[in-house]
């Protein structure tokens, strides 16, 4: 798990691992199902080792495996501030797909339109899943907002595929 994500969640207040896990679940909704809960604890241990967080045993919770309460150190605070200020954005794999179409067409290895069709099938399946999940979220849900982002991104990718389709469609003269 990316360390800054867990660190930033600790900025609200010192927390148990299970509290962080529950907050992550709430923010991610159905997407959180794919997440491995153990990753939170592994990440917390790494953060402590790196001096970005400290832990104290908490009283009265002896039966819980994660009875430690974690808090940010000043170094951890600094790292969080730096992360919030950072401008990062995941890059979609447009260039690779673009070059694949060009290579397929120039070598005559495959029909670029067939590649576009296959890609579209996959994106449409994902769009259907994302949209179903988004419509299932109540208004104002944090997870719904993330799903909306996925829907919009998939729509943009599908629109680009339409442009690819137009470009690679041979001009057909009607007999």
């Amino acid at each position, binding site marked *: 798990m990316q360390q800054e994500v867990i660190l930033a969640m600790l900025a609200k207040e010192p927390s148990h691992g299970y509290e962080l896990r529950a907050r992550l679940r709430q923010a991610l909704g159905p997407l959180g199902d794919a997440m491995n809960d153990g*990753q939170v604890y592994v990440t917390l241990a790494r953060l402590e080792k790196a001096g970005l967080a400290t832990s104290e045993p908490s009283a009265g919770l002896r039966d819980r495996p994660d009875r430690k309460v974690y808090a940010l150190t000043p170094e951890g605070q600094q790292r969080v501030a730096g992360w919030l200020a950072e401008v990062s954005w995941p890059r979609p794999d447009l260039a690779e797909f673009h070059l694949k179409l060009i290579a397929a067409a120039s070598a005559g290895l495959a029909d670029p*339109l067939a590649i576009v069709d296959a890609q*579209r099938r996959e994106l449409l399946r994902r769009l259907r899943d994302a949209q179903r999940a988004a419509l299932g979220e109540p208004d104002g849900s944090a997870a719904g907002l993330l799903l909306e982002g996925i829907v919009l991104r998939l729509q943009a990718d599908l629109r680009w595929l339409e442009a690819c389709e137009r470009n690679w469609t041979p001009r057909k003269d009607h007999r």
Partner: protein
Amino acid sequence: MNDVGASVLRTRGLRKQYGKGEGLVRAVDDVDLEVASGETVAVMGPSGCGKSTLLHLLGGLDRPSGGELWLAGQRIDQLGERALARLRRDKIGFIFQAFHLMDELTAAENIELPALLAGRSARWARRRAVELLQRVGLADRARFLPSALSGGQRQRVAVARALVSDPQLVLADEPTGNLDSQATVEVLRLFEDLHASGQTLVIVTHDSRIAATADRLISMRDGAFVDETRLTGGSAGNLGAVAGLTEMCEREV
């Protein structure tokens, strides 16, 4: 016909062409389509690919140049004008991009109109309109004129109207084409609901969101079907990858 089975709509070699010789345009070119009862099928393609012409043929709004068209086991491409008009009224519901509501009639009256034209009593039509307005979430807008409704609400009235005679087939031509994203979501929910209720639906669109409500998606180019996608399967795990979640979880430093 026995071989039709559970299919509501079926075409064999359906064609529509315009012009002659050098100027011949094959708007719909040898289309075979079979839509099962309760199925939602979306047809997508670039503008000018022939998808709207296809929808007009399927709904009996336009005549094919050749091929066969069957609705609920009845061959309809050779029906006379009057029989065809009756069939459109009783068995098919239409939803258009521009809603096509009557401006001077209220929401409820717009819904009642096709039922009255089909010979239903005023009382029957009124009851049916109330029921349908409730279904599309507009019970409190029954007396509003279309001009007092938002785009999404107008399209929901149009959907209710399409359902008034309990049609065997609903045909939708770019149902979200005139809507902003919030209104699109309203219509998406309604189409998901129609789908869940077992309504047979054919949608032609270039909006991938409404297309994604379908069971099956057909791509059309130059008047012909070129690809088909069954929109089942997949998992939320894939969505995690799209959102960058998978990568975020694997990143360590």
